[in-house]
């Protein structure tokens, strides 16, 4: 597989064409909510990512985003949405996954990503070889990170 095919895997192209989690946030009553706008000034890609968290359990009940950008940034946000939705992550679990994802993306292709933690997001490992695309892949994840900090502040 060429580096380019490694970057643009079928799964990524599918997610970029039919993104998961795109739309407005519908927060359940009583949930803690947070929203963050993340912008990549080098290309103009942007994302608004919102979450609703159960105050008691700290689980992310809903995640929704709006944005525009390249197939990598859009697919990455979509895969992240799916991960959060499928696994009903808590704040701490999501933070762990963000850290693992960041480590994979910044590893320049070295090491094996933790598939158990990252699920389909391991498909984005190919990005690590393209230093100029790291920000694209991180866009949604950085936005979620900021949301989680906001919610933590509300719970404290």
């Amino acid at each position: 597989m060429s580096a380019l095919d490694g970057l643009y895997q079928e799964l990524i192209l599918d997610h970029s064409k039919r993104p998961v989690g795109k739309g407005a946030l519908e927060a359940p009553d009583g949930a803690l909510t947070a929203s963050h706008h993340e912008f990549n000034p080098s290309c103009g890609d942007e994302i608004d990512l919102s979450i609703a968290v159960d105050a008691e359990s700290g689980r992310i009940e809903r995640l929704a985003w709006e944005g525009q950008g390249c197939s990598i940034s859009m697919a990455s946000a979509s895969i992240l949405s799916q991960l959060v939705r499928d696994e009903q992550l808590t704040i701490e679990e999501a933070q762990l996954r963000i850290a693992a994802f960041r480590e994979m993306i910044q590893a320049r292709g070295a090491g094996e990503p933790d598939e158990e933690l990252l699920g389909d997001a391991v498909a984005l490992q190919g990005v690590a070889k393209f230093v100029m695309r790291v920000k694209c892949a991180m866009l949604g994840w950085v936005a979620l990170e900021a949301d989680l900090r906001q919610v933590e502040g509300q719970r404290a």
Partner: protein
Amino acid sequence: METMSALTPAEVAELRAAFPYFALQAGLPTPPAYLDAAATSQRPAAVLDAERRFLETANAAVHRGTSGAVGAATEAFEGARAAVARFVGAAAPEQIVWAENATDALNIVALGIGEASANPALGVPGSERFAVGPGDEILVTEAEHHANLIPWQRLAARTGATFRYIPVREDGTWTIDDARAALTERTRVFAFAHISNVTGYVAPVAELAALARSVGALTVLDACQSVPHIPVDLDALGVDFAAFSGHKMLGPNGVGVLYGRPELLAALPPSRTGGSAITRVTMESAEFMPPPMRFEPGTQPVSQAVGLGAAVEFLSAVGMERAAAREHELVERLVAGIEETPGVRLLGPADPAQRVALAAVSVEGLHAHDVGQFLDEQGVLVRVGHHCAQPLHRAFGIASSTRASVHLTTTEDEIDRFLDALRGAQRYFGVEVSA
């Protein structure tokens, strides 16, 4: 441009051999197609050698001390200034101020006007002529590079002057009629690009400068994309100030140029002050040197200036008319190829006669970063992004674009590889449009 014969392909091949970057790549199975000269140009050995030779044989602290070595280094440094002056049609070398880059050069003007506006007493004799304030207008266009936009926004904010801009038309261009409608008796500064770094559109500078003069406005020209590509005679164009950068015209990084009309530079206050830009300093105050040294405080980019001097000698030896005629042929080929490709939108004028040096496109259904990634794999090096012109991209309704830019070393094959790769990207991502 038709009066002078274009460089022939054989001459271009010879030229490329004079650039180590191209000579070294020529041995590769797929040498890169370098179509990013508008971002930064490659440098001929003559430029690299001049810089190195200066450092190896003549380096000394220019304009400081009395030794013969300093004298020789100062001569080389000032000789480069004279060479640049000749190259851009400045009657006197003192009209050429060294800056870090074109952005810095534009800031010297905007900040200098700010100084003159804030406290004329702090300035230099005659600086009142630059003072702007509430009721005055500063005019730019929607097509400007951020470097020729933000300094003016800030000048307006600092002084209370009104910031205005000429909106672009659908194709990203603006006309002299648009300028006529926007310029008023209150306009004090009119800043615009000679050639847009996104659309390649060539502004009618001489007419615009005359128009601005008729209402008493200063013209500030961003000449970054013109000086490297076409013959430019700044005195004849009648602009008041102009800025361009060394690294886009075969010269080194770290040196740019501010051009100014002598009587204006003489009245412009310095915005950055320090050593060697002064005449008499007391514990209370300082008096400043005449231009250009007034605007060159601190240690200067000496070897870079010497390298830029070599770059303009190189370009002059090739002949800017012949280089421009050659680049015009390349741009015609580029634009024709883009127009023949369904699903690819050309930004800027469709008539190649109205543009110089480059063409940016937006590919339907594809983000510029994805286009750029595919092109990169094909060895086609272009610029993707907003090219420091977010407002212009917003006017086009897009966030980013893919820009191919040519130079006197560009070949037809490189243009064709770009066009093939564009179509390849459409196929790869499944967004091709049938004709």
